[in-house]
């Protein structure tokens, strides 16, 4: 049922109507357009994280195209003759010379370079934080697992893209990173040297190599194409499946509540795009990043102390640094475990765990339901614990990537720092898992208390017996319903239910279906894991003195 918005149309509106009509005459787009303009987007600050990733990608495309107009992807050796005095007369590759040229002789070139680099740093970072949001709120559950896989792939590809990007200028820092990457490839058993030679075109480094032109086309065409395709798929799936939302007033599994795409969301999100761009521009203007002219051209016989990659490579650098020195020699062959494990196997396992988690959790919890409402981290303590353990593992590797800087800054022994990190890498995740899980259970406990006993009012009353008690107010019914849903509890103990049962084979309410004993080893393993997954804080048993509650609701 359509109501006309009755006001005399202005000239602009008439023109807009004509345009819409003309477009529809060609594409029959009115129905689609109406649905799209009416699309509802829920509001929550954490939903902006993915938007930051999207908008930094837009910024990367814009600034990247500009940079490509000035960059020479060439390993030809030239003598620098530009305006940066300290390097004048130095022999360097054209790639490095053109980077200096765009930094010092192109007005605004340095700004664009720095915005590009900062946007890249923020791009990978916002993907990572967005991924944590999706993980801890259970947004990856059915039907959104596919989008989770696309997102993890985006994270990996973005990391590679960033590495390819900062390796292009052929300065001393980037060359060091490439040399390590080359060594990692070389360590792959059987095919390592071939992979490295084919990719780099020769041994690395080599002035006769085709490597910079290849890396350039990978960085500006191949990988951005993949990113663009994956991001498009990601967005289309979100559009199709509609956004998730946290439980709240009026929100159910079967609706989405928020602002319409047009005009509210459109204005807000464009404003956000410009603000993200503005922050990148601010950083590009006032925060120096990757000053390649200070490092000098790449030279295979040089390296500077404190060489650090961009943040998203730190974990690889850390795993290389923390790995003990294992190497096997047998039958005329060498396996360099000290590179293969930290450089290839470990990242492989880490990223595969990200891929595997959604189906694994669904299998353990037997959760096959559709989910549109998000969970809070406390609602699923074991998942939260696992996530925090994973972040801890990654975080120790991240710190390991700067163990020399840490040791120097705090005047610690480098060896002791490294050993502490080795231990932390193994035991840290267990410790933080336990803490996070207990924390989540504690918060659940608090929520249960609020649900069953109400909220503290801060009002202390004196009973006729002389005893002082605090007045507790029951939560408003709506709030109770939301909280009960979040805790996976049935409301009917509190009042007579709201008609339909919640789809609740998930969350922390253990599914009651396990009547038949499992037979196979796999099924028994699954059941054990399910027990582990749903272990939860028992509700406090009332002690003898608690039988008469000390809390009063409104007298």
């Amino acid at each position: 049922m359509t109501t006309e918005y009755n006001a005399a149309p202005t000239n602009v509106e008439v023109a807009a109507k004509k345009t819409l009509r003309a477009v529809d005459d060609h594409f029959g787009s009115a129905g689609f357009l109406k649905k799209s303009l009416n699309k509802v987007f829920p509001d929550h600050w954490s939903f902006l994280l993915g938007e930051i990733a999207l908008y930094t990608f837009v910024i990367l495309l814009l600034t990247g195209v500009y940079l490509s107009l000035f960059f020479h992807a060439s390993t030809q050796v030239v003598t620098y003759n530009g305006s940066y005095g300290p390097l004048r007369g130095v022999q360097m590759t054209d790639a490095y010379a053109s980077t200096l040229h765009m930094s010092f002789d192109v007005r605004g070139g340095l700004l664009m370079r720095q915005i590009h680099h900062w946007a890249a740093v923020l791009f990978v970072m916002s993907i990572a934080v967005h991924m944590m949001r999706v993980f801890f709120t259970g947004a990856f559950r059915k039907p959104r697992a596919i989008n989770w896989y696309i997102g993890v792939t985006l994270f990996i590809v973005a990391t590679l893209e960033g590495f390819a990007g900062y390796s292009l200028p052929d300065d001393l820092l980037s060359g060091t990173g490439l040399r390590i990457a080359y060594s990692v490839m070389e360590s792959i058993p059987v095919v390592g040297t071939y992979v490295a030679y084919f990719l780099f075109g020769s041994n690395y480094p080599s002035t006769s190599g085709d490597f910079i032109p290849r890396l350039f086309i990978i960085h500006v065409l191949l990988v951005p194409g993949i990113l663009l395709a994956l991001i498009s798929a990601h967005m289309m799936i979100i559009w199709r499946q509609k956004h998730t939302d946290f439980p709240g007033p009026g929100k159910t599994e079967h609706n989405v509540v928020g602002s319409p795409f047009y005009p509210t969301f459109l204005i807000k999100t464009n404003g956000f795009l410009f603000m993200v761009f503005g922050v990148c521009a601010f950083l590009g203007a006032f925060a120096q990043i990757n000053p390649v002219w200070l490092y000098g051209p790449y030279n295979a016989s040089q390296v500077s102390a404190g060489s650090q990659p961009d943040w998203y490579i730190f974990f690889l650098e850390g795993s290389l640094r923390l790995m003990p020195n294992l190497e096997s020699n047998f039958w005329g062959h060498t396996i360099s475990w000290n590179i293969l494990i930290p450089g290839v196997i470990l990242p492989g396992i880490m990223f595969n765990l990200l891929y595997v988690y959604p189906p694994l959790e669904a299998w353990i919890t037997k959760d096959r339901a559709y989910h549109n409402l998000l969970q809070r981290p406390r609602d699923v303590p074991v998942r939260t614990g696992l996530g925090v353990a994973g972040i801890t593992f990654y975080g120790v590797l991240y710190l390991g990537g700067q163990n020399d800087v840490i040791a120097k800054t705090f005047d610690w022994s480098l060896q002791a720092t490294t050993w502490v990190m080795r231990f932390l890498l193994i035991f840290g995740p267990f410790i933080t898992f336990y803490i996070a899980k207990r924390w989540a259970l504690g918060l659940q406990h608090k929520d249960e208390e609020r649900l069953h006993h109400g909220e503290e009012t801060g009002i202390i009353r004196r009973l006729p017996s002389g005893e002082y008690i605090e007045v507790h107010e029951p939560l408003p019914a709506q709030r109770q319903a939301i909280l009960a849903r979040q805790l996976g509890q049935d409301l009917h103990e509190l009042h007579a239910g709201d008609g339909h049962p919640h789809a609740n084979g998930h969350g922390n309410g253990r599914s009651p279906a396990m009547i038949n004993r499992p037979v196979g080893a796999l099924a028994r393993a699954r059941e054990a894991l399910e027990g582990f997954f749903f272990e939860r804080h028992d509700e406090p048993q009332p002690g003898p003195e608690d039988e008469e509650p000390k809390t009063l609701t409104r007298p």
Partner: protein
Amino acid sequence: MSDDNNRDDAPRTSHEAAGKITERLKSATSSSGEPRESGGTRSAKEIPAESFERSRMGADVPPKMRTPRKVGRRKPLTPQAADAQEAMFSRATDSDGTHAVPAEAFGIEHDPAQVDPREDRFAEWQVGVLFIIAALAVVGFVVSYVLIDQYASLGRDMNFALGGTFTVALLGLGGGMVLWAKKLLPHDKMVQERHDFFSPEEEQLDTEDVFIKGFREMGLGSRKVLRRSLLAAGALLPLPAVLLLRDLGPLPHSSLRHTGWAKGKKLVEVESGQPLKLGDMEIGSIATVMPEGLDDPNEHALAPTILIRFGPDQIRSKKEAEWGVEDHVAYSKICSHAGCPISLYEQQTHHLLCPCHQSTFDMADDANVIFGPAARRLPQLRITLDADGYFVAEGDYSQPVGPSFWERG
């Protein structure tokens, strides 16, 4: 919330109470557009009024705890906001059953700008000023581009000016737009039904039928010759693509075992480009050297070598001393871990540390690994002195230099 009475006509905003726009900052109107319930604290209106009646409270309850204002009653919207709201409520329902719901249903209040014409005008100006600032910043960008000397202080002035104005332009534009949505658009919410993620069963069945029918027509299931020959052709088709990649690079062959060093090649210092002879080095010093005639390290990635001069009797390894000459020893500079050039030498301890991954080698003990991820000693280059007293290599390295690889053995 702004003064202590419970009359029905209590002011809605502190602006109404105090008559000043700046006073509004002190009011607690919901500004985020979020339901208040989402926070950890509760607003007073959720607590039924009786709890707060003075007669039920102890004497020491502070007087500022008071009955909340009534909910659900508000002034009419400004004409613009009312128009916008009407437009929203008259949006065409799409097939997902979208409908608008007043903001109050979610405990959200309209921004003061939407109920008070003065606030409305002020908000419009706020947004407008931000947009004007953005426009001025763009002008500033153009002026900076033309007027500032791009070479002044290594381009920093230009970078600050262009980046600063660009930042202001973007933040002004972005901030203005966000403020526009927040202040001037209605906060009413849209509720949209979610459709099923799967199609109706008849449609699923129909689609499956179409697919199976086509599959049978193709005969991929029943025609064995067709299927197998197609598989063979399909499996072989990528082969040219793989083959075409062959010339991406040379095969490694034995190139990883050679470094450019050969018998009689002088040790040329990289910095000065001069061959080193006995007496050039002081005790405890090190030098990076390349083979004579191959002085670009990038051409010969595995050739960089360090020459160390020890004091008398400091070398603890017999082999090391034998392979060197007159307390001078030469080792590969390329780390046996990941190929970084090792450069941090501790003169007193004779430790050589790789800045990339902190592998540490005891150079007085034949480059034994004493810490870090490197698994092998650095290879030693056998050197001697020629007739003129110059250091020369006795040959190439006796083992592959640099990181390990499968064929290394």
